């Protein structure tokens, strides 16, 4: 009964928010045949705010019909009963799930790998790290809780063999973050960044810090932190020289559209405010947008 009440309350909120978003400007081009997705991190709290952001995603989906969502970890907080999965995933995203939107999960430090990787709606197919392709984009879901030599070897091989124009990695711990609570994962950065540069990764999505931040391009790579998909650490962002745009006042989801050599993005808050928007252009003549010489010098 409380679940039903919560669902009805969220639906009502969602309808109100729909009115807001319909008056709001869509910044994405919505090209025919483009790859469209949303990204959310640290969402599985089951709080009213998670439901409200999910409602906003649903409203946004009407204008920008994204086909899938990448989950940046901490998908289910505080337990793994069927009630947890229902209240923290199935109900908040019910409308998107019902419309056929697929969810691809990566694991956070609050996730139970044993259960989540076997949970069909997370599309992990029993793996802690995996890859999938959509159009001219290849996505790599990593397990940043446990970056062992096996995973690194797998990632190197998959990146090397990828013929995709765009390579996007997503995982939980941010290599760059200006948030005060966690901040940048420096050891992971030492290990992953040279590989990303060498293998032409253009975009990296992470969560963990409960804020939104777009980092100034680092060695030709664009890093986003989108860890306020349910949880929020208001006021935690210490805007640094790394920050291109940051927002820590409300829950946010990130939407992305890739068409040819153009990637457009728009970050939208729980109440429909656009907190960031822009485009990234890929240089088709260079792997990852960088020349071989640039890649080699940056990787070292």
């Amino acid at each position, binding site marked *: 009964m409380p679940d039903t009440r919560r669902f009805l309350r969220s639906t009502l909120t969602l309808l109100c928010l729909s009115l807001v978003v319909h008056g709001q400007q869509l910044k994405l081009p919505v090209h025919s045949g483009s790859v469209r997705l949303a990204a959310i991190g640290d969402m599985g709290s089951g709080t009213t705010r998670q439901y409200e952001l999910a409602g906003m995603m649903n409203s946004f989906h009407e204008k920008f019909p994204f086909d899938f969502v990448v989950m940046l970890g901490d998908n289910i907080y*505080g*337990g*793994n*009963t*069927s009630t*947890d*999965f229902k209240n923290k995933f199935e109900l908040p995203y019910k409308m998107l799930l019902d419309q056929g939107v697929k969810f691809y999960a990566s694991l956070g*430090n*609050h*996730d*139970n*790998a*044993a*259960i989540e990787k*076997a*949970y*069909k*709606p997370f599309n992990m*197919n*029993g793996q*802690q790290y995996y890859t999938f392709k959509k159009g001219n984009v290849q996505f790599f879901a990593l397990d*940043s*809780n*446990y*970056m*062992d*030599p*096996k995973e*690194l070897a797998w990632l190197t091989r998959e990146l090397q063999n990828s013929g995709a124009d765009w390579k996007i990695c997503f995982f939980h*711990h941010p290599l760059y973050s200006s948030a005060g609570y*966690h*901040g940048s*994962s*420096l*050891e*992971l950065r*030492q*290990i992953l960044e040279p590989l990303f540069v060498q293998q032409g990764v253009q975009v990296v999505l992470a969560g963990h810090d409960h804020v939104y931040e777009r980092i100034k391009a680092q060695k030709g790579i664009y890093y986003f932190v989108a860890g306020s998909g349910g949880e929020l650490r208001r006021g935690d962002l210490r805007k640094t020289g790394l920050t291109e745009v940051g927002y820590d006042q409300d829950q946010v989801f990130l939407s992305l559209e890739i068409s040819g050599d153009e990637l457009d993005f728009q970050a939208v808050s729980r109440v429909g405010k656009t907190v960031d928007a822009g485009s990234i252009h890929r240089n088709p003549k260079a792997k990852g947008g960088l020349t071989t010489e640039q890649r080699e010098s940056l990787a070292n």
Partner: protein
Amino acid sequence: MPTLFWFLGVAIATPGLALPVVTIQNGKPVTAQEAILIKDFSDRIKAYVALQKKLEASLPGLKSSNDSAEIASHAHTLRVMIIEARPNLQQGNIFTPELSTYFKSTIRKTFQEPGSQVVRRTVQESDLPKPIVVRVNGVYPDESPLITTPPTLLNRLPELPKELTYRILGRTFVLLDNKTNLIVDFLPDAIP
């Protein structure tokens, strides 16, 4: 080159002589003594995984499900079966005194060598797990967040099959069953 052959020849002909590098294990150079320890560890791990697989084979197959309760129930049943098959085991069932010394020394080196601040930061920046009693055949609780196991450390330790992981809980180093969240063994006071 002839010097190297002479060196290796002496190493092979002189058992127990601690020479710096005589073999490659998991792509990494190790001493003869380390190779023996790693082989012992690997055998113990293989035996555990064989038991886990044998027990799981007796359960109805479950690769994935739309129902998280079904997955949790499968993990729970397997966990109970493993506990029943390894009753009364104590700390040290995998980490023997010799292996304990080897692991603790590798961990200490990784956390204390120059430039290791980033390794310590990896552990410190994580959300603190709730205090739990670590014991063999205990369960890593769902409510407790995971601490990232430093990649530098993982690169130095013997590689594990996908069924097991190395975890850190405060100063304790834990060998965890990935399928059931069961604590297989642990090393107290391993993290300096």
